[in-house]
């Protein structure tokens, strides 16, 4: 029973099954919206599918019990497969001389036989030249009157495969540690204010050991209107004391005591001091006024008053707008929205909302992930493993020379490691030039 379990955990079939299953379920996760409020799923996908989504935790598929289970199974599969190979691998690496096994001349991927004329010494010399050109300095052994030569290169390259597989374990372990010991969420701080609480991504809040004050937020734009820079100037406060001041930009996070603060979003916290230009349609005379909300001002040359009733940071996706009210004697109030820089004509006047002073808030992505060093180590290890596997090939060549009447019978066996065809061409060419000479 244990044996069957061990065998199936060590099988490449399981690896393939896991790769395909993980890939297919990941596709699912990109097709079903992740992280919606739970009650929304019934509206979007219907009650039937919503029940399945709830049952299999598909609203947060990549953290569901079964997806994490598949990843853990992959980790076990990699561990068992790699562990099983290690003893043989180290035996192979440690053994200096692999001469003397006659079976290899039948079982190797590539074998050749030829008769060579001349003394055994001469034949051996030629064989050594051949080995040097193909694999490296040969090791010599003699037994039963036969000469055995063996050469190899890249004996450590197979360790690269171990490194690649171990690195996946490191990365998975890092991910696990991060999901257990870390957190992530968003923090919203108004300019001139400070905050110590993070709204966690999975719901709930978390109190940080330090507070962050936002001294200033600014956004600048290119000439074509695309954003150029989002920037928050912040101060870290510990127990009310200023510890350090820093600037957070996109791609330039603030790191402090294992916490990381990244620029994520921004918005208008509060607007005041609105500039409205009232233009007389008949005379073209412009009168700019600075307004506060719910404070009326006279419209020049009339009995009418104008007031701003409300401010919307983003009116119907068209940017900031002001809700204007015209107070005309003996008539009902005229209420209308004035989007910024899109003047509105009412009565004999054109009202343009040109500017306002705003207090922004900055939205920071805050998190701590103790698994990151392991993941980085995994990345380095996988690259080292790939370098070993791609830059060097493990190649072995064996030769046996048996003295015969005319000279020697030469048997060659080779395991080229990769590119069998190319190696065979090289072998045959070297063979002809060396032994024909």
């Amino acid at each position: 029973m244990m044996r069957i379990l061990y065998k199936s955990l060590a099988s490449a079939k399981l690896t393939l099954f896991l790769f395909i299953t993980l890939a297919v379920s990941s596709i699912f996760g990109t097709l079903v919206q992740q992280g919606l409020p739970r009650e929304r799923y019934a509206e979007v996908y219907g009650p039937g599918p919503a029940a399945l989504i709830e049952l299999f935790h598909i609203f947060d598929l990549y953290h569901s019990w079964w997806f994490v289970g598949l990843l853990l199974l992959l980790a076990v599969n990699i561990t068992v497969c790699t562990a099983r190979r290690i003893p043989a691998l180290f035996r192979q690496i440690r053994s200096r001389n692999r001469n003397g096994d006659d079976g290899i001349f039948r079982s190797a991927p590539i074998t050749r036989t030829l008769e060579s004329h001349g003394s055994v010494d001469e034949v051996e010399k030629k064989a050594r030249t051949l080995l040097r050109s193909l694999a490296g300095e040969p090791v010599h052994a003699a037994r039963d009157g036969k000469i055995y030569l063996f050469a190899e290169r890249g004996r450590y390259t197979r360790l690269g495969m171990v490194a690649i597989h171990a690195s996946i374990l490191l990365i998975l372990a890092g991910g696990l540690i991060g999901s257990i010991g870390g957190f992530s969420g968003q923090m919203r701080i108004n300019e001139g204010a400070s905050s110590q609480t993070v709204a966690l991504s999975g719901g709930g809040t978390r109190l940080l050991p330090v507070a962050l004050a936002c001294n200033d937020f600014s956004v600048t734009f290119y000439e074509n209107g695309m954003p150029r820079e989002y920037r928050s100037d912040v101060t870290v406060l510990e127990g009310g004391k200023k510890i350090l001041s820093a600037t957070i930009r996109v791609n330039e996070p603030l790191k402090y005591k294992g916490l990381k603060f990244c620029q994520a979003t921004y918005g208008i916290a509060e607007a005041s001091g609105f500039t409205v230009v009232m233009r007389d349609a008949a005379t073209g005379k412009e009168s700019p006024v600075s307004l506060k909300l719910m404070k009326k001002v006279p419209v020049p040359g009339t009995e009418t008053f104008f007031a701003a009733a409300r401010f919307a940071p983003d009116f119907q996706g068209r940017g900031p707008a002001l809700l204007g009210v015209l107070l005309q004697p003996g008539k009902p109030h005229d209420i209308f929205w004035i989007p910024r820089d899109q003047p509105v004509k009412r009565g004999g006047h054109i009202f343009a909302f040109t500017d306002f002073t705003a207090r922004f808030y900055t939205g920071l992505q805050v998190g701590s992930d103790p698994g990151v060093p392991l993941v980085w180590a995994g990345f380095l290890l996988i690259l080292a493993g790939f370098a070993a596997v791609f830059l060097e090939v493990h190649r072995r060549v064996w030769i046996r020379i048996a003295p015969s009447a005319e000279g020697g019978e030469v048997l060659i066996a080779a395991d080229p490691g990769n590119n069998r065809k190319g190696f065979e061409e090289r072998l045959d060419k070297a063979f002809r030039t060396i032994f024909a000479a």
Partner: protein
Amino acid sequence: MDDTFLISLATFVYFAVALLFVIAVAFENRRAERFALSVAVAGFTLHTGSILMRWLLSYRLGIGHAPLSNFYESLVFFSWSLVVVLFVSRRRYRGGLIGAILSLFAFLLLAYASLSGKVDARIQPLIPALQSNWLISHVISAFLAYACFALSFGAGVLYLVRKKARGGLVSRLPSTEFFDELAYRTISIGFLLLTLGIITGAVWADTAWGRYWGWDPKETWSLITWMLYGAYLHARLVKGWRGTATAVISIVGFIAVIFTYLGVNYILAGLHSYL
């Protein structure tokens, strides 16, 4: 004259290259093959010149950055990567077939970029998220990987075509073993490059978004692609699968590549919306 003009020229040159390579294969003509190769070098020079020129022009506009920041630039660079793979592959493989596959893909991508009219070719400034030193290494490794997978896709398709062939022109193609081996080699190298692309992306995401992995659609699809090709390598190296089964995986793998490249941006929403 600006960079897009050079790209239109390169588009026509690559069309000629593809034709010449097809002729070279159909008539087993070495001279046509050599000629195709030198025309490809000319096209590649125009292509590279256009990329460098665009780079320079962006500096002249005061928004200098490597031309790897929007859909147009990604199409041009994808096409460029294909031609790089074409030249590199000649170190090991002769014959016009790889040239025909790759120059055809390169032509189609450039034709779409420069002639469709749907792709905005203006030089745009770099949005804050892309202002990073990781941009270049991330994009280069990802697109070189895509280019390798494009070739393995061609090899997979031609494997199946060649296998079905009973006489006719198709049986003049190289053997099924050739396509099998070609798919394997390109997938090995593509897998390494894709890994590098994912790693550079993860390290970048950690600074830009505060996490190295967030199951964003682009990230998820790159992992799906990685696992499919991982399955290919294990099927072949450990289980010893050959032939039709692995050819099918190399075709499915490339569909995942295309989805990673385009589908994520046009069908699914995510952070990675600039391609």
